[in-house]
């Protein structure tokens, strides 16, 4: 099959692609230096590292560096948390992002539209530590605004930082607040790229707003959604350390619902790191993510080949 394809192109036809290859050089070179060469350092996860022999020369160590992570009693909890939170984040952020994007694009008033567009990205600018201060301002047991509200209405104070059941919601909310602007912006760019004549034609045919959205806007968004989904699936075993460590203020009672692979690794290696063991976690996350992505990409390429990433 590949042979056939090749034969179809004559040398003259190849020539037209040369500019494209030249254009790709800087980007590919950068990926080589920034990503591929350091990537060979992955072997350190299987080594007993010492600085004299270097990354490649150190003796092999098998899977010993992975033990602390995978034999732990918390292994199930941290993998479950990482996975489920990411699934929730992907679903919530994408749905909210699409809804906001469609609404913002439909706003008729120009300067209001601008205001909405600017404001959704603002939380993205706030560092996670500062975000944790803001969350604390609301949830603090002693001085928090929520507890002040509760006590002034004759309710009991809630010990937020010691009550695990609220935290899945709080974390999903905070993550959405902070991150939704990013996806929304991508969707806004896509929605505004849709040819306006489609809508005009639909309106002439008497399609209402909802029908226009489901029949025109959403189908146009599908490629972007699939691309974003595939990319997030690759990182499904990574977690934003700050979100799970700083926002719950490192509170022990909350570990069952806030402990993820990244926070676990941090706490386990806080006093005695060693680059072998710290990269073991990264290798684990990458391998699982890679497998999942290849699998999902395979499914996508079977159903709609145009949308597959590779």
């Amino acid at each position, binding site marked *: 099959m590949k042979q056939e394809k090749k034969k179809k192109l004559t040398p003259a036809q190849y020539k037209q692609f040369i500019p494209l290859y030249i254009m790709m050089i800087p980007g590919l070179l950068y990926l080589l230096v920034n990503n591929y060469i350091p990537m*060979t350092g992955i072997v350190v996860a299987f080594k007993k590292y010492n*600085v004299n*022999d270097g990354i*490649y020369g150190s003796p092999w160590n098998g899977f010993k560096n992975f033990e602390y992570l995978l034999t732990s009693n918390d292994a199930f909890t941290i993998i479950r948390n990482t996975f489920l939170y990411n699934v929730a984040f992907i679903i919530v952020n994408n749905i909210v992002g699409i809804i906001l994007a469609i609404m913002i694009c439909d706003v008729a008033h120009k300067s209001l539209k601008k205001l909405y567009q600017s404001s959704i990205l603002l939380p993205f600018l706030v560092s996670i530590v500062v975000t944790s201060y803001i969350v604390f301002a609301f949830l603090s047991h002693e001085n928090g605004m929520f507890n002040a509200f509760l006590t002034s209405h004759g309710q009991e104070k809630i010990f937020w930082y010691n009550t695990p059941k609220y935290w899945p919601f709080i974390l999903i909310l905070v993550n959405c607040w902070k991150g939704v602007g990013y996806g929304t912006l991508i969707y806004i760019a896509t929605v505004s790229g849709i040819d306006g004549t489609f809508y005009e034609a639909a309106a002439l045919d008497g399609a209402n707003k909802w029908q226009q959205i489901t029949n025109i806007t959403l189908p146009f968004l599908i490629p972007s959604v699939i691309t974003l989904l595939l990319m997030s699936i690759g990182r499904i075993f990574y977690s934003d350390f700050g979100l799970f460590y700083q926002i719950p203020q*490192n509170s022990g009672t909350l570990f069952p619902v806030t402990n993820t692979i990244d926070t676990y690794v941090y*706490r*386990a290696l806080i*006093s005695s790191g060693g680059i072998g*063991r710290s990269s073991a976690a990264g290798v684990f996350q990458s391998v699982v993510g890679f497998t999942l992505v290849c699998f999902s990409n395979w499914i996508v390429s079977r159903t709609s080949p145009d949308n597959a990433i590779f």
Partner: protein
Amino acid sequence: MKAKKIFATLMAATMAATVLAGCGGSSGSSAGSSASAPASQETASGEADTSIDMEGEPYTVNFCYLVAQEGADQQKVNEAVNELTMRELNMKVNMIPMTFGTYSNQIQLMLSSGEDLDIFPAFAANMADYITSQYIVDLNDYEPYLTGVMDVMGEEDYYAGTVAGFLTGFPRMQERGYPAGLVVRKDIFDELGYKIEDFAGIRPDNWDDYQKVTDLFAAVHEAYPDMVVLDGTVSLGTSTYAWTDVLSDTFGVLENYGQNTTVTNWFETDQFYQLAKLHRTWFENGYESADIATNTDSGEIKMKAGNCFSFLLYYKPNTAAEKLSQTGYEVEVIELSDACKMTTGVASAVFSIANASKDKVKAAQFLNWAYTNGEFNDLINWGVEGLDWVEDENGNACYPEGVTAATCGYHNDYGWIYPNQFAGHAWVGNDADIWDQYKVYNDSMMTSKAYGFQLDTTPVATEIAQLNTVWSQYQKDVCFGILDPDTAIKEMNDAMYAAGLQTVIDEKQKQLDEWLAAQN
């Protein structure tokens, strides 16, 4: 065509990878060759020539140290240090100041990449990794060059940094014990009619004594209902150095200030239960801040803000003077435990020589000098004399006229993490004989039977990593009394045993027995 391209890409990647490997290897091998042969200056007779080379090309020592914040006068301090070392050692110093927040990341990167580095402060918890990764050198090999350190430290403390026969580094000159204390505001304390003598002799062999503290809290809480009675980040249960010899990490300890030699699980002892129970009472009665388990601001900050009566800490001879300048309040210190000298406390941070050092003999000579030279210790702590500090009539250091804490270009007050603060000046507000007081204090305290023993954590690294996560899950909630100790301690212990606590205890006992046998 396609295959060719892939091949070419792979080739390029491999070549580049070889470059990377080469760099790691080459810097390593040069370090390796000199590591095994410290005798670069050995004479024909085999006797080491320890004299300082004042003639040759000056060697540049890369000296990493911790600072409170980087001041504007850093460059001037570096120049002054250079002038001093050129005069005394024919060496130059490249000072690499780091703050605590960035230190652990940056030092790890510098060490693992083999970057130029001679001397740096290393923390005990990392030692096993530093030794297996060959980041540091065994100082036993350089003993002839380190006689000055021996004189300053005394033999006992000189060897405190030994892990399985490998001398990792030297402790700093500071207090040697860490007893628990409660700092209380003197104005309120006096107003309510208390006297510090009433609180003398509170020790963990009689738990009823601690009721006095609870009663004090109750009285303050009644007189000032809006005030947080106890705040800060320290609890009795997390002040582990104050009760037992913690043998590195508290996972298996020697009870009774290390006077036993059987390794036990401290979290199952009555002592730990009683400490948690005390906090439970304080928490339930509202003496502690409701946010205490998640709070990250120190007791000093809380007290300075004016709404906090007391906080816990490890006290030392000049605690009261120090807290006055830090909080703006006169304080009393209620002692809650005895002081005990144990390896983990003394060697918690040591100055080590990095394997990446290009001339380890010269690095050792510099380190030796750093422990004996008062001028150097003053320079790195207080800055340039006349510019950042001056000597007052008592012989203490203080700000020059017109200079304040806000305008001073270099001021660390970090004597405890520098080689030898005792050789330099103490800050104004301390007694003139403060360093003598320290020496008396250090000599007077009891010593753990395992003093000098340090656990080699390599065989149990996996278990310790897992125990760290369990401890970090429970420590604040149990020790601050957020959870009911009657159920939570059991739960914590179950989690600890599941994470391999018994394996760690057994390993500790084994290594300790071997060490004890070797002592006799």
